């Protein structure tokens, strides 16, 4: 696994978590601010996102924090199919974010509607309403997969250039 080509810090002998910390430092020069948005999830994906904050995963040690306001967020971490009842609020949340902004579709529902695809009350994934940068598969994605997905997302902001 070498990184540079897909915008990520090369793996070397770093694990995903360490790479994420370095990439955030390199790209943003500060911590990564995430706004979580439940757009119609079953709570499974959100529970795993919350688990990132427990002392075992402790993603704050990597320079990541969840913020209350979308105005302070670099990245929108979206779960759920995008229910029609929430569409308006979801769009407003996205619009309130400063640029550059990233949208990460978290879990099968956010990617494609998951098991809820084809229902009258939701979209088949958040991509029908928001521009998606990175997709993290899983139902729900494990915390490790979430960390990897965030690494990929941050790499999109300013691709790592080994020569720089």
């Amino acid at each position, binding site marked *: 696994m070498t990184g540079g080509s897909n915008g990520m810090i090369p793996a070397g002998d770093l694990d995903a978590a360490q790479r994420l910390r370095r990439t955030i430092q390199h790209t943003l020069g500060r911590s990564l601010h995430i706004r*979580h*948005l*439940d*757009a*119609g*999830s*079953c*709570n*499974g*994906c*959100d*529970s*795993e*996102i*919350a*688990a990132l*904050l*427990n*002392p*075992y*995963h402790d993603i704050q040690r990597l320079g990541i924090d*969840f913020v*209350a*306001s979308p105005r302070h967020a670099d990245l929108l971490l979206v779960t*759920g*199919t995008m*229910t*029609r*009842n*929430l*569409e*308006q*609020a*979801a769009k407003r*949340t996205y619009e309130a974010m400063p640029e550059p902004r990233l949208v990460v579709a978290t879990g099968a529902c956010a990617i494609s509607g*998951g*098991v*809820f695809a*084809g*229902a*009258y*009350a*939701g979209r088949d994934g958040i991509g029908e309403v928001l521009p998606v940068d990175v997709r993290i598969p899983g*139902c*729900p994605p*494990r915390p490790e997969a979430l960390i990897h997905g965030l690494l990929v997302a941050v790499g999109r902001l300013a691709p790592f250039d080994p020569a720089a």
Partner: protein
Amino acid sequence: MAEPVEHIAPVALGPRVAELIADGGHFVMLVGLDERSVGGDGLAIEAVVATQSGLARLRAQLPLTNPSYPTMSRMVPAAHWDEREAKDLLGIVPIGHPDPRRLVLHEQWPSGYAPLRKDVPVDRQPALGDHHFVPFEVHGEGVYQLPVGPIHAGVIEPGHFRFSAIGERVLHLDARLFFVHRGLEKLVEGRTFARALPIVERACGVCTVTHALAYAQAVESLTRTTIPDRARWARVLLAELERLYNHVGDLGNMCAGVGFQPAISRLGWLRERLLQLNDALTGHRYLTGIVAPGGLAADLSPDGLAILPAALDDIGAELAAAVRSIIRSEGVMDRFQGTGLVGPAEARTLGALGVAARASGLLLDLRADRPYAAYGELDVSTTVFHGGDVAARFHVRAQEAHEALRLVREVLHEMPDGPFRAPLAAVPATGASEVAGVEGPRGASWLWLRAGPDGTIDRLRLRSASFANWPVVAAAVPGNLVPDFPLINKSFELCYACTDR
């Protein structure tokens, strides 16, 4: 169990339900039905009440045009949301309802669109308008309105809360939910029992065993299937592990409501360990995909079973220490005590379930009242507290977590070897229906299921404990301080996903 359906005139429905409840019965649910797929020519509404002698099922037939009946919510407040839901989803009007606003389909949805009618295709998405929510507010000198949500700070589910407050004191709370309504009940119609399972269990991602179990039990009753002994015992094990990781997490969330960081970390760590045990046992951190109609989809992992006893001893000791540290913290207990009070009469009238009921003195527990899986062979001790406040809900959860640990150990002792799944024994007749209930971490979740042709689903309704308890939260808040709302809310720790479906 196959309780018979009693047909009743629409005007008699409310008084009959009220009478059964006055005699000690408990409201289970209302379910709106389109009878045209099972040989009828109109709609119907069925009320289910749990009585001493089993479930009473009362069904009133309604015409296709202007289907309506006199509301029962004034006599049976627990039916308040059920009636509004049937109105939104089937167009069945409860005449004289105290709150005729939209519930499930918000105001933007076109009037007349009733998705659970059989002539509406599953994926028909009508164009939405731009009508807005009209909150119920209290007005008067010095009273101000505080809107919060639907999108909140923190990693939590969406809901809109409208407080009418005077100073810091809440006079009234209007909760607006169903932002995560996904259309689950329509989506499973026409699917086979097997293909609907992954959808039903994802009604809530942290109560997947509860919902899968209620569903499996309903399917097994419909198909007259007896499941193997190993599966019966394993189901208890899984249900108690689900209760355990939820209760441990919820105890931590209650501490988050008062910012008591040492306990948040400690319990967060314990919950993570429990999720990893789930993973070792079933391959899924939330135990999804393991319960299936007929028994289990797969046997429990022998490696997972082997590490369970020692891990549980360790977790039990650490949990006891964490709970002690919280109870000894005067600052925390001071915030817990007397906050978010719900008296026993109020809890009973509103139809509180689970922890919310047992912390207000109501002895309600389906594991003992209507035993399923192997609970009938276990001696489940149900915890009841009488305080009705945040502290009581804390104590109930803490004791139930320990009881769950004890039950898991007992299952490990008793669970026999052998097959873990039986094939479904029969194809049910079109129109046959069953009701099943499971005592989940938040209380009784009830599932109503009717068969269509060839082993498919005609109609499914899921009424989770969270759905039942939301009106109790709204009643617990007035009189408290606005900043105590997060704590009160966390003391119930209801789920939006299974409420909204």
